[in-house]
């Protein structure tokens, strides 16, 4: 299996290099056979990478501990699903997975666009294969998952305990495939720049691919937050850890891109900006993949420091030099077709949205890399913690929410301000009402303001849905439910986008509450004793020892009462995995009471059963996960095939605009 795997990778590398040559030469000399052979090379690369990955998974299933990678990450007593998941539990395997996603989606894109975007394809293919060549080079030369051990151990070390969690089954695959999928839009963008075909064809080609990458990355981030919340035991879901931040960066820039690309489609503006965002998104994906493995930043995700850091840095520099170079070279062809006519226009709204997103990305990037830069310039490493990010990103998010509320009501070109005011009448009243009540009730004024803005935005978004539905019901004579369904189905880009907005607002509700009103207490209790936190009473019942195939477990049982009423029992665990006995891994006991999460961490204990428990009450965190579900629904809506694309795409404002131009 090891030979099959490494052989497949070497063959893939050779084919990838051949494919670049074939595509470039074929495009230059106009030889269709050569072009076709270049595309086939990509299909073959994707196939071979898949073969290598299957070989790796089979090695894991057969417990083939001759392979260093298998022996380092799995053991015989691990449950089957973790044995399979272990293949992306380390650097080599996760890079292989990255490569598979990039090559698989790239091949799929070549196939799907084989008729529609002929002129772009050769260069798209060459860019794609260049990226793959780099990855395959790393996988074969520096960091091969198929490296053999000199001596075969009888059993493997097992997967690190922190990774033995259901979160492991979902977070890395989504996050990595999100990163990797940005290769496809990047390749199309490069192709557009190289060919100089900067019209609307390449935009149409990449919107869905960007959307896919963006959705996967977003979902990966969400699942990561969920995982951190359930495993890491500090009562939160987002710690502004460098690695999380770096994964957030391409998501922020691609969110900006997905908004500003609408302006280019409709009004032919912001062309340079969009390409720059696309380039930045891909560069940040590479940066995120690489910095994790370079040991340059300290993080909870301390991966092994390895030599591949330099490779990634070189590749990143190449991507940036070529990308920015091409962008500058094509600047004359990227003139805006129109000017923004009014500050209260939808295009201006999108522009501000982009400014806010990039500002946020910049602040996060700056904070994350600050230790590196401060060391470079002032010879001291200064690192910034969560307070920095909360302080900078918090206000920006608030303004962004406000913009999210007003944006959908802005018209292209120019908005009638009186009409706008009439439209926001009810949502604004609701928002101000909530804000005033909040100012009276809450101890924190910022939470009241944040809720006021959130309610305002929710109000406007729901009002938009309601109006659209009413209009359909009137015009198409459908009942309300059918009208709402058809609205989503036929205008999926618009209303799917609003669904995603709603998802963000739901999350905002949870994020604001859990930041402003979290309670935390440490208790030292003997079995039978109790303590109170907020309206809750926790009764500690005692410790229990258990055993599974691969671990010894200490479980603390805690009864939760709200007032006098029994609300549930939670168990908080410490797992002692074989081979990792010095790393007792916590599993939190979390129970939902009403809208509050009661979150119990077992900290330390004595032989007589006395335990130190840390208890958090996290209000409304459940809203974040509900928002996550709505996010998925919204994204699915965005992908829904358009039944009548021609009709939906001729809005009146554009018809008016084209006559002027």
């Amino acid at each position: 299996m090891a030979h099959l795997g490494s052989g497949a990778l070497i063959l893939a590398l050779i084919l990838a290099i051949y494919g670049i040559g074939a595509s470039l030469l074929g495009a230059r000399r106009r030889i269709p056979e050569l072009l076709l052979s270049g595309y086939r090379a990509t299909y073959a690369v994707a196939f071979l990478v898949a073969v290598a990955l299957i070989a790796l998974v089979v090695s894991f299933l057969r417990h083939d501990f001759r392979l260093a990678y298998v022996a380092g990450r799995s053991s015989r007593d691990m449950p089957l699903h973790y044995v399979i998941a272990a293949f992306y539990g380390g650097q080599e395997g996760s890079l292989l997975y990255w490569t598979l996603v990039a090559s698989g989606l790239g091949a799929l894109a070549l196939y799907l666009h084989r008729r529609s975007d002929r002129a772009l394809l050769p260069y798209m293919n060459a860019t794609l294969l260049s990226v793959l060549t780099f990855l395959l080079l790393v996988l074969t030369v520096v960091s091969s998952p198929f490296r053999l051990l000199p001596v075969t151990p009888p059993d493997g070390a097992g997967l690190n305990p922190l990774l033995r969690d259901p979160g492991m089954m979902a977070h890395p695959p989504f996050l990595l495939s999100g990163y990797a999928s940005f290769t496809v839009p990047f390749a199309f963008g490069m192709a557009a720049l190289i060919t100089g075909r900067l019209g609307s064809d390449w935009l149409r080609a990449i919107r869905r691919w960007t959307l896919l990458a963006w959705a996967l990355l977003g979902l990966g981030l969400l699942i990561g937050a969920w995982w951190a919340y359930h495993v890491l035991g500090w009562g939160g879901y987002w710690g502004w850890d460098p690695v999380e931040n770096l994964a957030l960066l391409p998501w922020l820039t691609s969110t900006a891109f997905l908004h500003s690309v609408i302006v280019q489609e409709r009004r032919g503006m912001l062309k340079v900006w969009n390409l720059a965002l696309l380039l930045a998104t891909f560069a940040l994906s590479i940066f995120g993949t690489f910095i994790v493995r370079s040991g340059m930043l300290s993080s909870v995700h301390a991966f092994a420091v390895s030599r591949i850091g330099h490779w990634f840095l070189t590749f990143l520099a190449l991507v940036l030099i070529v990308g920015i170079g091409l962008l500058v070279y094509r600047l004359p062809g990227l003139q805006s077709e129109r000017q923004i006519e009014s500050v209260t226009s939808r295009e201006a709204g999108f522009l501000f949205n982009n400014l806010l997103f990039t500002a946020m990305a910049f602040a996060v990037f700056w904070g994350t890399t600050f230790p590196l830069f401060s060391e470079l310039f002032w010879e001291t490493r200064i690192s910034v913690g969560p307070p920095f990010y909360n302080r900078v990103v918090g206000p920006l998010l608030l303004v962004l929410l406000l913009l999210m509320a007003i944006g959908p009501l802005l018209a292209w070109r120019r908005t009638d301000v009186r009409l706008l005011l009439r439209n926001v009448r009810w949502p604004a009243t609701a928002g101000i009402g909530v804000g005033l009540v909040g100012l009276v009730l809450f101890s924190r004024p910022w939470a009241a303001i944040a809720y006021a803005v959130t309610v305002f935005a929710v109000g406007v978004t729901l009002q938009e849905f309601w109006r659209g539905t009413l209009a359909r019901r009137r015009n198409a004579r459908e009942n309300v439910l059918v009208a709402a369904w058809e609205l989503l189905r036929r205008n999926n880009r618009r209303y799917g986008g609003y669904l995603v907005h709603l998802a963000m607002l739901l999350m905002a509700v949870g994020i604001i509450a859990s930041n402003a009103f979290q309670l935390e207490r440490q208790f030292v209790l003997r079995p039978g004793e109790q303590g109170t936190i907020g309206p809750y009473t926790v009764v500690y019942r005692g410790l229990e020892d258990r055993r599974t195939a691969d671990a010894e477990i200490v479980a603390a049982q805690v009864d939760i009462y709200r007032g006098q009423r029994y609300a549930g029992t939670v168990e908080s665990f410490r797992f002692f995995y074989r081979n990792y006995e010095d790393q007792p891994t916590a599993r939190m006991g979390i129970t939902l009471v009403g809208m509050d999460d009661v979150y119990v961490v077992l900290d330390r204990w004595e032989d007589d059963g006395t335990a130190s428990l840390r208890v958090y009450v996290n209000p409304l965190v459940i809203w974040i996960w509900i928002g996550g579900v709505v996010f998925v629904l919204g994204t699915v809506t965005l992908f829904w095939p358009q039944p009548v694309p021609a009709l939906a795409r001729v809005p009146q404002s554009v018809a008016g605009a084209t006559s002027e131009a």
Partner: protein
Amino acid sequence: MSSAVVTRTSARGLRVDVRLFGIAVVIAAAVGYLMYTGLQGTAASYFVTVSELQAKAASVDGRRVRVGGDVVAGSIVRGGPGEPIRFRISDGTNELEVVYAGVLPDIFAEGRHVIVEGLYRTGQPIQADSVLTQCPSRFESVPTTATS
């Protein structure tokens, strides 16, 4: 479209551009301000080794520091449940006393490389509010050939 209309549009366009630019500058300035003040307060901390900390004790006194070092073997005093844990970290030449009251990270142990963060006062142990463990084999453990 007549040329008169076009000129009017572009004159207004210029005014709009100036306004948009103004708003962009305001946003950039606000972000800059937020980032600058963010670095001034307690959000930023000096990243030093134990020796560096003792060398510059005067200049970082009363500031937040982030110190990396290995947990000295035999220095961990866990105390009973609820009491803060005490330990020393070392960079090979100098040692520093740490007091920490929070939940220890999962992989905290003697000899592990940790990064503690908290307020520094000369001559006192660091009252850490965060302890970050890091070990090179975190996600890449070496197989032990002798296990059976």
